[in-house]
Each structure stands twice: as C-alpha cells, then as structure tokens.
C-alpha cells in the first residue's frame, strides 16, 4: 500500500477517478461548446457557460512533451523510493493547450525533447485507485 497521497473524488470528479481505475483517461467536456477543460471548473473556461454540464469523456491519452523537470526531492510522502523521477508537462492531442502534468514512467535516463510523443500510462496506488502518468510512445 502506497503512502502517496490518494485522490479524494468529489461529486464532480468521481467519474474521472472511476475511469482512471479502469486505466481510461477522461477529460471534462463542456456540453455547450464541446471544449475540454483540465481541471474542470464551475463555469466553462472556453464558452463561459455557467451551465457547462461537464462530462468526463475518454480521450486518446496521446500527447506531446512541452516541458519536464527531474524531481530530486519529494515534499510529499510516498515518493522517496522513486527519486529521482521525471515530471512531464504534456499537451494532449485532442485540443491545443490542453495540458496535464504527470510522472514519466520511463525513468530519468531518458533523452527527452520538447515535442516527444507520449501516451498515458497509469500507476495503481491502491485497490480501485489509479492515477495517470505518461510513457514515451515507441
């Protein structure tokens, strides 16, 4: 059992975490304008609808690396055994500027470049709890 912080699903995010547990990446999509938002909000950040009725919609999980950092110190519990690790800032292919940040599971000895293709992977943290991360596309 990991000591890493576990996500606490709320009324809005529960479908995201249910899908993640099945290793499916979803992103909140506004029912009014069809644009994706990460994270979701109470007002759609694109069309400004105050009734966005966001639906967590499965996405391809594919994206490109916009930036990265090598984490050498953990400020949260449960990461010490994984140090150092890489965090990647990823733009998903579904929409310009739709960005997610997660661990790159390929390890630190990876020759990374902006624009490298990645695909979502999942880390199983506890029974029924998985969080998104990324892997380089081969």
């Amino acid at each position, binding site marked *: 059992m990991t000591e*890493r*912080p576990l*996500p606490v699903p709320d009324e809005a995010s529960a479908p995201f975490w249910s899908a993640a547990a099945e290793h499916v990446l979803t992103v909140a999509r506004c029912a009014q304008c069809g644009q994706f938002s990460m994270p979701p909000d109470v007002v759609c950040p694109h069309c400004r609808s105050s009734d966005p009725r966001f639906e967590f919609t499965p996405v391809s999980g594919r994206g490109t690396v916009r930036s*990265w*950092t090598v984490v*050498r110190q953990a*400020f949260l519990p449960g990461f010490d055994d994984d140090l150092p690790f890489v*965090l990647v800032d990823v733009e998903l292919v579904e929409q310009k500027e739709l960005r997610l940040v997660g661990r790159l599971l390929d390890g630190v000895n990876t020759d990374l470049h*902006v624009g490298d293709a990645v695909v979502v992977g999942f880390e199983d943290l506890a029974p029924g709890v998985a969080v998104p991360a990324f892997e380089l596309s081969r």
Partner: protein
Amino acid sequence: MSGRFAASNKVAIVGYAHSQVLRHGDRTLGVQAVETARAAIADAGLGLEQIDGFVSSSLLPSAGGQAAEDGVSTVSSAWLAQHLGAEPRYVAGFDGIGQITGSVGIAVNAIASGAADYVLFHRALHNPAGRYHANPMRQAHGPMQWTAPQGFFGPLAMIALPYNEYLQRYGARRESMAAVAVEARKNGARIPWSYWHDRPLSADEYLQAPMLFDPVCRYDCDIPVDGVAAFVFTSAERGKDLPHPPVYIAGYAAGAPAHRRLPLHWPLDDIIDGGAQTARRLWANAGITAAQVDLPQVYDGFSPFVWLWLEVLGFCPPGEAHRFVESGGIDSDRPDALPALSGGGALGNGRMHGIPQMLECYLQLARRAGDRQRDRATIGLACHSSPHFGGAVVYSAEAF
C-alpha cells in the same frame, strides 16, 4: 478614457524600517513586527496617533500546509493595529498573488480616496520549523487531486517546468543563470540587515550546488527567513512637511492570467503573454515607458523570474535575457548597465517576498541608500512574483 492612474504621484512613501533578516528569529514574529512598525512611524516623523490606516499581505508562502497563527507565523494588519494600540479608520489586506505590489496598490488607493491619511504598510515573513515545503498530506482533496497524487506538487515544480521550457525554446543553458544569483548575492552582501550580509556567492559555488528540480538548483531559490519590513504612506501634499524626501507612486499594475490551469501549472507562454499585458497596463497606468526607468528591480524569488521580467518589461528582447545578464547587462557596478538587482532581491536578502525590490526603490529614490547610493535613480520599478500573476509598481523621486 485615459489609461493614466488618476492618483499618479499623489501618494508617497515617507518613511520605513526593516528588521534584521534571520534564518529563525530569536523573538516572536509579532514582536518584531510591532517594533519595526514603531521604528517606521518614528522614521517618518510621525506619532502612532496619526496612523489611521493599516495595509498588508500576510500569506505564509509555504506548501507545507501549516496552520497560520496570527502574530506568530503571520502578522495581519488587524493584529498589528491592535497590538500597537492604534485606532485605525481603515484596515485591509491583499490576498492574491504578488502580495507586495498588490498591497501597495491598496495602500495607495486608501490614501488617494481619503479612507486614511497615514497608512502603515508592513510585511512579516516567517520560516516555520521543519522542511519549508514538506507536506504530510495523505489525501488530496479539491484542486490538489489533479496534481499531488501524480507527484506534481510545490513551487519548485511550478518554476522548474516553465524554466526548462525557456531553456529548450531559446537554446539557453542553466549555467547562464549563475550570473543572476551571483549579482543578487553581490548586492545583498552589501546590505547590513540581509541574511547574506558579507556573504557573496561565486559562480563556482552556484554551479556546484545540488540540483533540486532540474534545472533548478539550490541557489536559484531564495532562502526562507524571519523578517519584517514597514513603510509609511501618505499624500504627496502631507509628505512635503515630513523629514525625508517623499518617494511618489507613479502607478501600478497586476497580472490577470487568461487560462485556467492545474494548480501551480505556469506554462511559459502564460507567463510571457500575461506578463506582456501586465507591462502594457503598467506603462499606461504610470504614464512612462521602459526607457525612462533607471532603477528596475525585478523579482527573483526564483532566479528564472529575473529573465522573464526583463523580457516582458522590454529591457531586452524575448529569449535574450540569458545572454543579456551573462554579459553584464544587470551588473550594478557597471555605469552603462541596468541595475536590476541592485537591492539584492530575495536571492540576496532572504525570502522577504518583493520587499527588497520595493525598499531599494525607496532608499535610492529618497537618496537614503548610504554607501550604496546611486547617482542616477529617478524612476524605479519594483516587481513581485511572476509577470502573469504578480505585479509591479513604478516609483518616482519627482512628481511628474
């Protein structure tokens, strides 16, 4: 509608005080704040009974999730007014990002509107026991659920991502950042109250420092400290009769990020584009251009902010700040350079937020900088936080 601030140069700083900056204060933060406030009021030639406004910001900028205790780990204006025994007409705090520039705006507005005649402005910063950003969180609620379980947490990750994005985009090297840290520490070493007084940093020390979140190394981060600064604001008119030359506030601007992002996700383009808007509003508000500023004090709580502010304010072309700084462009000892960290900044003083920038503008423009006094210091500019989220204030030695 004119963009110029209606109260431009109608409000001034007329006195100040600054505590010693220590890694851990030997007395409670509130005690230090009370004494520093009294010293600032006296420095302005005033008595407590004349102070009718109190303005501050009191965020404890740690990711550690500590419960803030007023008077101990933070000091609010209400706490300070009560413990001084003042009877203020106006008390306010700024709770956004860019705490110093944001709260200066509130102080200026309070004077300009007549809500108060003399405002005591302060900032008290505390270094809690234990690792500054360590957080024992086992459950990630609310906005944090989208980042913390994934390992994305804390201000070092926040700055490391756009910093690396900058390096990759412009072909810059992290080694070039040594010039920023060395310049800040050179100037901070000359300041008696600085945590780094008499302790400059060499480029070699910078390059050998441990990496924390690549490309961020230890000396790219200001060191957490205990310290208090206080300033007195009043109208330009009333300021004329006080002991020290008034330093006018010509204008100010704050960032307003356009994009909703994950918590602490500050992509490079958000900073650059948002910063350009901050700069545009600043010049319009103050009624000047970048070319008129002879004392720009850019924010440096994390060293990459120095490059970013220099570029968004137009002091060097986009993508060029790394070369500009490395070739001596901000060397405060070169007469032809831009003294952008002459006050030592946060890297050279300790984590006093944007206070070192503000104080350097005040001291130089009031001609109270002592041995460090610069010949040319007419219009200063003090930044705080990131260009897209924080803000900047223009100070002037003359009401123009």
